[in-house]
């Protein structure tokens, strides 16, 4: 039953990804010209003489003289074989460029998610079980500030005070001295030293949102009759809360996994630029600006793939956790 369900979901992923790839390809190709024309225009604007014959050669080399449909097919065929293409700007395969930054991105994002959960869970539960208390109001207020302040502003403020109070160097995830060093214990400690700033900044909004969502969900569940039943059995309040309403309100966390996976990889672009983090976010933005089409396209495709996988994981987890989804199957018509 469950295996068939998973198979079915995996099969549905194929058309989803195909449509996504077509969309990405179309959108990236929509602006006039391509990377080489942008490059030539930039060089001319800077007064340099562009080697038109070389550009023509490159265009031919990368198949830009072919019709878009053919380029699309080639690109997708490459992706299927794990070839993400070649970045014109960096003159290196896309896989290498992204790979370099992926580790740092994942560290930042993962730490952010853990931070979000650790903070949001207790506060959400407290707010729901102490509805309309001063604690609830106070925490809600702080959460709303976190939600309302723009990330880049928070980033600037934090950078300033981190430097003044803790002497942490501005920008980046490591002290400049470790920048091109291989990973070592000292470098790792330096990363940890810097990590908390982006984690708090990126996590602020998400934490506030999650507190609100958890509070609302839990409040709904606390009204339910089965919670009264559980307490009528004589369960201690904490255990009754954990086993019944909290479990039910978890469903939305799990359906959230689908969004979490891609955000782990993409990194928060704007914050990363302000803090000049060596994550993938700024890379993607730069690639989109310069029409570095294989870098941008393949990276977006990678994110889409992770989204689809994330949704699959959350669907399977939901089916495991909630017997109503597992056993009732398709809705009756």
């Amino acid at each position, binding site marked *: 039953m469950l295996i068939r369900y998973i198979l079915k979901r995996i099969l549905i992923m194929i058309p989803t990804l195909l449509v996504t790839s077509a969309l990405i390809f179309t959108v990236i190709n929509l602006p006039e010209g391509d990377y080489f024309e942008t490059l030539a225009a930039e060089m001319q604007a800077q007064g340099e003489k562009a080697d038109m014959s070389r550009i023509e050669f490159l265009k031919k080399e990368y198949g830009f003289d072919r019709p878009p449909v053919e380029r699309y097919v080639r690109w997708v065929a490459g992706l299927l074989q794990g070839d993400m293409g070649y970045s014109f700007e960096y003159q290196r395969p896309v896989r290498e460029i992204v790979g370099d930054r992926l580790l740092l991105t994942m560290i930042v994002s993962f730490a952010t998610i853990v931070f979000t959960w650790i903070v949001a869970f207790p506060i959400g539960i407290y707010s729901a079980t102490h509805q309309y208390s001063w604690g609830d109001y106070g925490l809600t207020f702080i959460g709303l500030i976190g939600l309302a302040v723009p990330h880049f502003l928070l980033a600037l403020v934090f950078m300033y005070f981190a430097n003044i109070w803790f002497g942490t160097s501005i920008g980046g995830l490591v002290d400049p001295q470790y920048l091109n060093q291989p990973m070592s214990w000292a470098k790792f400690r330096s990363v940890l030293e810097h990590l908390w700033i982006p984690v708090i900044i990126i996590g602020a909004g998400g934490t506030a949102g999650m507190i609100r969502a958890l509070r609302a969900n839990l409040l709904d569940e606390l009204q339910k*009759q*089965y919670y009264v*039943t*559980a*307490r*009528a*059995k*004589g*369960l201690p309040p904490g255990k009754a809360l954990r086993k019944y309403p909290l479990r039910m309100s978890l469903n939305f966390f799990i359906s959230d996994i689908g969004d979490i996976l891609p955000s782990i990889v993409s990194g928060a672009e704007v914050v990363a630029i302000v803090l000049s983090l060596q994550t993938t976010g700024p890379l993607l933005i730069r690639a989109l600006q310069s029409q570095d089409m294989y870098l941008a396209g393949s990276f977006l495709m990678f994110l889409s793939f992770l989204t689809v996988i994330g949704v699959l994981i959350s669907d399977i987890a939901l089916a495991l956790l909630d017997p*109503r989804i597992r056993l009732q199957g398709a809705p009756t018509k």
Partner: protein
Amino acid sequence: MTSGKHTVAGRRQTDIMDILRISDLRIGFTVHGLAREVVKGVSLRVPAGKTVALVGESGSGKSVISQAIMGLLPRAGAVTGGEILFREPLEPGTVVDIATLPPEGEGIRDLRGGRIGMIFQEPMSSLSPVHTIGNQIEEALLLHRPMPKPQARELIEAMLKRVGFKNPKRAFDHYSFELSGGLRQRAMLAMALICQPALLIADEPTTALDVTIQAQVLDLMRELQAEMGMAILLITHDLGVVANMADEVVVIFHGEIMERGPVEDIFRRPRHPYLKALLNASPHFDMQEGERLVALREARPRPAAAPAPKPAPDAAPLLSVRHLQKTYVTGSRSFFGKGSLSVVKAVDNVSFDIKRGECLGLVGESGCGKTTVSKIIMRAVTANAGEVIFDDGRERVDVLGLKGDALRAFRPRIQMIFQDPVSSLSPRMTVTNILREPLAIHDRGETQGQLDRVRALMQDVGLDTRFLNRYPHSFSGGQRQRIGIARALALDPDLIICDEPVSALDVSVQAQILNLLKDLQAERGLTFLFISHNLAVVNYMADRIAVMANGRIVELAPRHTLFTRPVHPYTKALLRSVPFADLDRKLDFKLVAPGGASDDSHWGEAFRIGSDASALAPVPLGEGHYVLARPNADVRELVS
């Protein structure tokens, strides 16, 4: 207030001791800073092994008292005075004052579930949907009587078997949504009784169940009480249930006890006017032709409006339904292959007529297809086959064949009154908007004309026109239902479908609404299709009654005939299961259908579907009495 325990030394053991004794209990609620007392000095007792019924309307404070006994008052509520003494029968002499125990402390938690069990009205929502039945019962058991799991499972399976699960081993691993309402309530009983409590609090335990299932669950509660010797505090507003279950009765009204005493005194010699009024407001089967229920508060003073002229008796029926068929496909639909699909016949070859000015009752248990029939007539659901002809004397309309504008123009002719007065009115619309909306949709008149019409409608249902700018939440259930009736009347329909219009209302309000519907029918010559599972209510309202089971109409007869000379075994089982508010006609629990009344294996040979469903046909028994049976069966044999 350190401990509520104190020993009553030297007190002689009386024959029956009181498990629970509540004296001068006061409970207050603080909402938006305003304190309000909802229970005002209530005293009652529950003797060991006996059943005490706490009777009252919604809002009378009866559920709050049960919450206080369990220590489960909402945060806004608190006991402000009096005591709730619980006497442990296993250790005579110890008395606990529950009112003084901290609400989440260990003392009350030991009692809760361990010594005092509780079951609730909604078997649907009182079990967790994501834990198995066994898991939830086991939790209650292990909490109060720690033991190895295999042994616990054995006990639980024995208990599940005792409450009527045919296969307790499998039932242990079932989830609540896989069970029917009756089985869920049985599982709740198993959970409440697994620790062998001294007191069971049953808060409207059968209100949400069909009559036949209700009779089974009540029977089960009595049997278990006889076996385990626990006392029952039964909270209900159904006097029929009280007459059949209770040893003692306590009547509560607005947080005060009106009357209490042994059940004999209460029913044979009611003293307090409120109790008398309550008894007069419940419809029963012995009502004379034209007898009127006495509502506690009438919706409006009886108007002097002349009754509408009666149509000619030989006129064509207003609505005639023929061979209606509706099937649903359920089960999981797999991506490849078939999965486990099954076809359910919700409506199976249903035919009936409704004459102009008549009220046709449609009764049956939940899931029998009666609501589906109404939805097909309303064109909210599409039938697979069949015909619905609407004939108002001027033109014949094929209702199921209408499309587009023709359907739109036809819709005002049939309107609907719904069961739930809370969810059938939009909380974001004022009464004016609610009542005007149908007029606006169908472009009836100018703004001023519509507003005048809305005022007239309010007066018709006996509501003050000053309420027009209020929102539904500021009305009581009965008032809301009257708004729903006014909305149905707005477009001057010929036929009104009432889908369980009073089943969500208290007895006293129910009488008010039923009387209002009767008056409106007489004044305007309305035609009703009245759907209900409450036979007494249908008996009061309907001229003819159709009984539905498993998607078929099994018996159709004039009201009086159906109740005095029922023929079909299903109808008989239904009638046998109705609890009367009369001590001389107690339910014979042993006669109630064992496997559920709609299980046709208990029916006689002539009524069984067997292998060939088409072999059954409505057999006329004279005087408009039809029963679904094999045509070759001897009619006299059926009647006997």
